[in-house]
């Protein structure tokens, strides 16, 4: 009996690891963005695809069709996919190409776990000077380029123009956004009085990225150096305290929604229950669909802009998606295939911008077809004013988690502002001190 069980076990083992033999060069690509094979499995018509998942799926299909000697096998992982990638790297079996947030690259690059891609770019005929500033900063570190930047994404003010009109905050068909903090509060109160709805929709629950983005952006605008060196963060400064106090005031005066997580905030915005929802580029597609559907609260009532300049310089904290190449042994054919994939993806960067993300290539910003997409002229400045965190800072994800958690506590009043910022600083500095 045991023998039979053992035989069955071995047969299953063989089933799980059957080798491929079709004389193609295989690349193994791992990504998030979901799985939509049902709708786009066999399609190579990129122009007709919609949404992150549809566009990336058809792009890969198209690459496979255009390059008969290469076969890209796709592995879809649950967002953000880093526990799996970490496990794969530890098991020395990482994929060939992986989607990675630019803030995460430095963790892997500092350990030599991802390859510099300078050679691939050269073979593909791509120069880092083709990238937008935000994208280039995001993938460059230790004197090398560590990934093909694929987009820039960051915070935007998504605006319900119907409510703005009701509040008397439209000029020349465009919503009036504040220029100073005082204007922000004045307009918010006016909005609240005339519409009966909150001015800001906020997701302060279970969404540390929201609070961290707000704090980073308005500290950067005032010229604050968040990371003076790779071992320290500085938040508990007069500028940091002031930014946190402004957001605290928004909540104290009930000018923004309370107790919402991301799904609740999105739902509130599409239901017309607030004026501005500061969230990312990634929501543009969904909100546009709402704006085009008759009968919906957002129908013909949607506009979107970068975070407004409220003081100092007009800059904004941004991040981006990129394609990285985990370090492992590869054949020359595979290296060549990776270069061809880069070249293909760079040439199709426009298609990805239909998701709402901003392009990683300067040339796309100037293309008429990009400008012709709705709202893109309004949000294009983000590619110029966008600032990633310095690439020498490791563990940016974990840091964002800590900063966001503490900042949200300060914004909502669960902690006093100095308490929260002091705690955030201490926790991040301990974390950074542990890194060799």
């Amino acid at each position, binding site marked *: 009996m045991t023998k039979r069980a053992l035989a069955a076990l071995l047969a299953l083992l063989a089933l799980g690891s059957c080798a491929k033999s079709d004389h193609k060069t295989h690349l193994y690509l791992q990504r998030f963005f979901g799985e939509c*094979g049902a709708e786009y499995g066999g399609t190579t018509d990129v122009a007709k695809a919609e949404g992150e998942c549809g566009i990336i799926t058809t792009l890969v299909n198209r690459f496979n069709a255009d390059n008969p000697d290469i076969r890209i096998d796709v592995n879809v992982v649950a967002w953000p996919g880093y526990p*799996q990638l970490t496990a794969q790297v530890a098991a020395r079996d990482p994929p060939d190409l992986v989607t990675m947030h630019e803030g995460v690259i430095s963790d892997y690059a500092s350990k030599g776990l991802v390859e510099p891609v300078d050679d691939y770019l050269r073979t593909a005929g791509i120069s880092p000077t083709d990238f937008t500033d935000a994208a280039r900063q995001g993938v460059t570190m230790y004197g090398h380029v560590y990934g093909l930047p694929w987009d820039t994404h960051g915070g935007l003010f998504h605006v319900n123009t119907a409510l703005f009109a009701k509040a008397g905050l439209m000029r020349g068909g465009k919503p009036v956004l504040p220029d100073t903090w005082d204007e922000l509060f004045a307009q918010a109160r006016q909005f609240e009085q005339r519409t009966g709805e909150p001015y800001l929709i906020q997701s302060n629950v279970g969404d540390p990225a929201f609070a961290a983005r707000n704090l980073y952006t308005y500290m950067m605008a005032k010229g604050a150096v968040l990371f003076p060196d790779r071992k320290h963060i500085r938040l508990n400064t007069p500028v940091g305290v002031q930014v946190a106090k402004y957001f605290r005031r928004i909540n104290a005066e009930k000018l923004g929604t309370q107790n919402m997580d*991301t799904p609740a905030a999105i*739902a509130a915005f599409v239901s017309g229950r607030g004026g501005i929802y500061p969230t990312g580029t990634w929501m543009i597609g969904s909100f546009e669909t*709402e704006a085009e559907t008759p009968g919906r609260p957002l129908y013909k009532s949607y506009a979107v802009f970068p975070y407004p300049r409220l003081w100092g310089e007009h800059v904004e904290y941004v991040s981006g998606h990129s394609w990285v190449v985990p370090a492992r042994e590869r054949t020359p054919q595979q290296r060549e295939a990776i270069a061809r994939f880069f070249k293909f993806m760079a040439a199709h960067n426009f298609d990805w911008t239909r998701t709402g993300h901003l392009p990683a290539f300067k040339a796309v910003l100037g293309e008429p077809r990009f400008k012709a997409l709705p709202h893109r002229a309004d949000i294009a400045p983000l590619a110029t004013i966008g600032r990633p965190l310095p690439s020498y800072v490791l563990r940016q994800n974990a840091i964002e988690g800590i900063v966001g958690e503490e900042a949200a506590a300060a914004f909502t009043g669960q902690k006093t502002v100095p308490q929260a910022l002091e705690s955030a600083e201490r926790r991040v500095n301990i974390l950074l001190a542990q890194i060799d």
Partner: protein
Amino acid sequence: MAADFRRGRLTPLGWAALVIGAALMLAPLTWAVLLSLKDNAALVGHSEAALHGPYTLDNYVAIFGNSLTTRWLLNSTIVALGQTAGVLILASLAGYGFARLDFPFRRTLFVIVLIGLAVPSQAVILPQHELFAWLHLHNSYPGLILPGLIAPFGVFFMTTYMRGIPRELDEAAMLDGASRWTTFWKVILPLTVPAQSTLAVFTFLGAWNDYWWPLISATRSDMYTLTVGLAAAQMNYAQTSGLGYLMAQAVFASIPIFIVYIIFQKQIVRAMAGTAV
């Protein structure tokens, strides 16, 4: 079950409490099923739309539109059945050993097994991953099945169950010249069928629902289990724009084990009754 007379009849108040309790149990499940039957777009910002029609099966159709869903279903079945079979074999053998045989360090070894109940699985998952990488077992069925075979509760359960079986039975068999193994195989094991089915259901349930181990061990999509595959298939912000689909996935993944439970329900209570717990 001749249990009715043991306690008085339930008072009307007792029944009312039961019905309310049952309603509390069922409300979230009903809510999930209703959400799964709605068009995704209708739910954006209006989950209360699930309380009324129109309803559709589109979300369930979409689950099968993904060509890998049946493969994930198969993987989950193989892993859950493999773990169940393995746990039953190992726990029965060990249970018999601990319950009936005297050998050096028996008590110590039993305590060491029980200590396993206090080990948080998150505490050993990384060293385990390292070990399985070294053995080249990731992305394979043995790699998915083996960690689930470490079931201290199963050993404890079978040990106490077997202790409850009258010793006269094995002693009679041994007097007839049966070996230890024959006594175990021919006399004791048949008496443990109810306990086996209980343990089977709980092992199957745990294996089917396991998330973290398959997430980091099965990293190639054709080796995903259903829980991992369905999570990977979600698009960003699925809780907003794909709520109906998400709920349909949840309901769909739960149906097989619910069926297993219904089939074994009678056996389970009977088996529990036999355990000296």
